[in-house]
């Protein structure tokens, strides 16, 4: 029987001592993995949003309540529209390279259709000018969508070729998008003209402010020329009295980045405080465990176990406990990412995202490594102290009789 087996038996047969130590480790690592995973997801979401937005500026009707961040990250526009001619006017601004309009029809419940999502958005795109969706086509079977065809976001569970019913109309799925970590994932895209027809059938004429859907758009996405000053162009559009608001997407993203950076600093500080408390608690714990076993350690030394053997024994025990606690904490942390994100999304506007399998494995691996480091850090001094004990003092607790 070697030192490692003895360490394993010491941990498993002293359950109550090991359990408390394991719980302290598990909670610390759970917090670490949770914070780490959430920030990874949000950072990935930001990067994806940045990347996918071929648009540098998003133009919304002045009366739209939803801010550009919501539109960017959650794809949650309202039934507020502007005249489609505004796009033509915007094209004349210096530095505007491309524009494409979108038309938001409605939000429908996901369960009624074909998705895991709570709700799905129906958005019409102009395929002749679209530069937003094209980079995200995963499977696309036609050059141009017909009126009864749709492209679905990555969150929507269905397969190309299937027929689905949307607002009581039959549609054929002709394309799917990669996961973008944004509202696009739970959006059904169709031809803009068909989206307008659906909207006119669903809503009363009072919704259109004296116009008709065929003459309206919900948003205009702008790609600026290389080297153009995006903020300046957005400012010029806003000053042009078009009844619209133009928002630079890069400034929106950087505002979220700043927001996240501030929150992350606070969370990082709190986590470091927790880490410090955990290290102190675990050091105290390992110290008292070593003290409880002082006589036994003296006995092992008397039997001929080297100082290095005692150190190895105690560090191995710490690693087994920290490893098990860390693994449990990491797995729990990963499981809690989704509900935690939901809570955060309610409180602040952040890019939608989800932890991928690879992300989860990386988080668990990092959590496990952190727990082993924590175990080593907390047990090193007590282990060194115990291994340096004079055997006689350890055995007789200093009593020379």
């Amino acid at each position, binding site marked *: *029987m*070697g030192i490692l087996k*003895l360490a394993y*038996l*010491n941990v498993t*047969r*002293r359950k109550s001592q090991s359990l408390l130590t394991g719980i302290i480790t598990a909670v610390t690592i759970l917090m670490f993995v949770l914070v780490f995973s959430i920030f990874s997801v949000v950072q990935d979401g930001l990067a994806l949003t940045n990347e996918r937005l071929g648009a540098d500026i998003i133009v919304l009707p002045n009366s739209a309540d939803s801010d550009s961040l919501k539109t960017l990250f959650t794809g949650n526009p309202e039934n507020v529209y502007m005249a489609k001619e505004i796009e033509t006017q915007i094209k004349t601004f210096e530095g505007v390279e491309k524009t494409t309009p979108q038309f938001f029809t409605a939000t429908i419940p996901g369960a009624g259709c074909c998705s895991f999502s709570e709700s799905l958005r129906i958005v019409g795109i102009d395929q002749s000018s679209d530069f937003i969706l094209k980079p995200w086509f995963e499977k696309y079977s036609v050059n141009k969508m017909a009126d009864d065809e749709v492209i679905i976001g990555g969150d929507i569970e269905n397969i190309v070729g299937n027929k689905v019913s949307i607002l009581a109309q039959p549609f054929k799925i002709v394309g799917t998008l990669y996961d973008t970590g944004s509202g696009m994932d739970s959006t059904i895209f169709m031809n803009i003209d068909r989206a307008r027809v659906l909207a006119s059938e669903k809503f009363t004429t009072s919704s259109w402010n004296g116009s008709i859907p065929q003459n309206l758009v919900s948003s205009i996405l702008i790609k600026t020329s290389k080297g153009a000053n995006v903020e300046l162009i957005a400012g010029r559009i806003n000053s042009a009295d078009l009844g619209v608001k133009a928002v630079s997407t890069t400034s929106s993203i950087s505002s979220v980045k700043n927001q996240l950076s501030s929150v992350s600093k606070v969370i990082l500080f709190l986590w470091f405080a927790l880490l410090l408390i955990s290290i102190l608690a675990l050091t105290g714990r390992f110290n008292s465990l070593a003290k409880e*076993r002082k*006589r*036994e350690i*003296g*006995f*092992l*030394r*008397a*039997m*001929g*176990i*080297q*100082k290095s053997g005692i150190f190895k024994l105690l560090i191995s025990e710490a690693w087994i406990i920290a490893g098990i606690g860390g693994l449990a904490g990491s797995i729990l942390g990963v499981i809690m990412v989704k509900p935690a994100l939901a809570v955060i999304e309610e409180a602040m506007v952040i890019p939608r995202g989800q932890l991928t399998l690879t992300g989860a494995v990386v988080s668990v691996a990092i959590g496990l490594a952190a727990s082993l480091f924590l175990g080593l850090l907390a047990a090193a001094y007590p282990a060194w102290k115990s291994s340096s004990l*004079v*055997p*006689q003092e350890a*055995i*007789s607790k200093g009593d*020379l*009789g």
Partner: protein
Amino acid sequence: MEELKPGAAGSHFERGSRVMEICRLENVKKTYEAGEDVTPIEQISLTVNSGDFLCIEGPSGIGKSTLLYIMGGLLDATSGNVYIDGRNINQMSDKELTDTRRDKVGFIFQDSNLIQALTLEENLLFAQNLGNKKKDYTQIEHFLTRLGLWERRNFLPGEVSGGQRRRAMVACALIKDPLLILADEPTNDLDEHWANVVLSLLSEAVNSGKSIVLVTHNTHGAEKAHLRFDLSQGILHRK
């Protein structure tokens, strides 16, 4: 002071066997601070040869255990030299001294000392495996049976009585197959029957060439020894 050489005085083992020096104390003195300077060992010279069974008697707290600790390399002497198997342990590194304890010395401590997370059987297995010795289950079975522990072999030390723990400690010391067994009150907590079994096992070890130094504050077991000493005022007196 005259050096005491028990082996030379005639032990059971030396008849017909080659006598070897196992442990030698040379003018050993031990002083420690406990409010004031205490000197439990004033000046002791003693040679223990193979096959010697020595008993050191004396009242509690007189320094008997201290002497055993010094002999076994668990405690440094203030002055003097200690030799185990011909090597001065004062000149050994900690690693060498630990290896010496592992290979050549078996301790039976006054208080029950076992590895708490191991069953009695596993404690014996651990002791036997020290120094990469081969697992010999026959020996483990032999000691567990002789010491009445077979039925309790799968119990943890905390689950058995004090007497059973002490018997297991005796087994742990013997199963290491050391040259020198240092036994500190080995029959404490034992009824007469088990005390006699333990003393018989120790005698058998002596007959097979091991050396035993037993310390006790009563006469139980002392009669089995070839030589008996009294420790008083830091000096050994032959009885």
